[in-house]
């Protein structure tokens, strides 16, 4: 059975302020002279290796897991699941 690499990206909802992103933007990026950058949001990336018969099934497992175990907090987070191919043995 192949092993799929599945990434889950967790971000604050647009309404919830992200002070870490704001600080990086203000004190690093703008000070560093990158004036064309308009904003930064910081998130969290979890990379899973999931054994399954297909990419669709691997994604399904990841989505179910994120909801069952509250990997993200629906009150304040959005999340995105992406398949990044299979692991090379």
């Amino acid at each position: 059975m192949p092993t799929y690499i599945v990434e889950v990206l967790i971000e604050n909802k647009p309404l919830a302020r992200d002070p870490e992103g704001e600080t990086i933007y203000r004190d690093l990026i703008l000070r560093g002279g990158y004036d064309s950058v308009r904003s930064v949001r910081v998130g969290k990336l979890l990379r899973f290796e999931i054994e399954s018969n297909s990419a669709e099934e691997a994604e399904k497992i990841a989505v179910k897991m994120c909801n069952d175990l509250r990997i993200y907090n629906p009150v304040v987070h959005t999340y995105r699941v992406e398949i990044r191919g299979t692991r090379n043995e």
Partner: protein
Amino acid sequence: MFIPTAWKLGELEMNDIRVAVIRFPGSNCDLDTVYVLQRVLGVDARLVWHRDFKDDAWDAVIIPGGFSYGDYLRAGAIAARSPAMKHVREMAKEGKPVLGICNGFQILVESELLPGALLMNSTLKFICKWVTIRTETNRTAFTRSIPRGKLLKIPIAHIQGRYYIDEKSLRELEDNDQIVFRYVNDNGEVVEEANPNGSVSNIAGVCNLEGNVLGLMPHPERASERILSPFGTDHGKLIFESMIDYIRRYL
């Protein structure tokens, strides 16, 4: 389990109220909480390792502060999925008092026993200082002996304490009288300068609809003896005394 010898249970005169303080890996102020309950209030309080915690035999349960599981993923997220929290949920359903202090509040929020979320402080810094909070309601098991509007001096110590909830849910909290404490200035006014962490509406503590589950970021167990307070106050004790009064009347 380590308990300082001076606290050996046999040496204490304790009443018949039994309160569990759950210890997760990374809990702190758990012994302070047991100490206050036993030594200051005479309650039969016990420290219980989370794997050993069952909902029978306890009148109330307290989830202490700290950094359970190293705050990995999010503060409280891993402890919230532990079997111990299933038992806490049962006690909450039975109407027994459930108190979450600091990390305990984060665990109750992540368990969905309380609404909202607790995010990184707006300053991105760990804040450890005494603040003033205002008692917004006395219909809860933990504020029934405190007059509405009473100002309490109490310390905070956290980095993920910024209470967040969307506007619609905030209105519901207000309509249902679920906001229990707000950060205020010395005059009791809700102002931005008194908000240490950027919490929505200066919220420091909320309860469930029924009022038997309370979570708050400040540490009442660090403010229950006059000698520990720079103001000579013992306001934290009022919260525990309310809980005892509630247990005596209703359980």
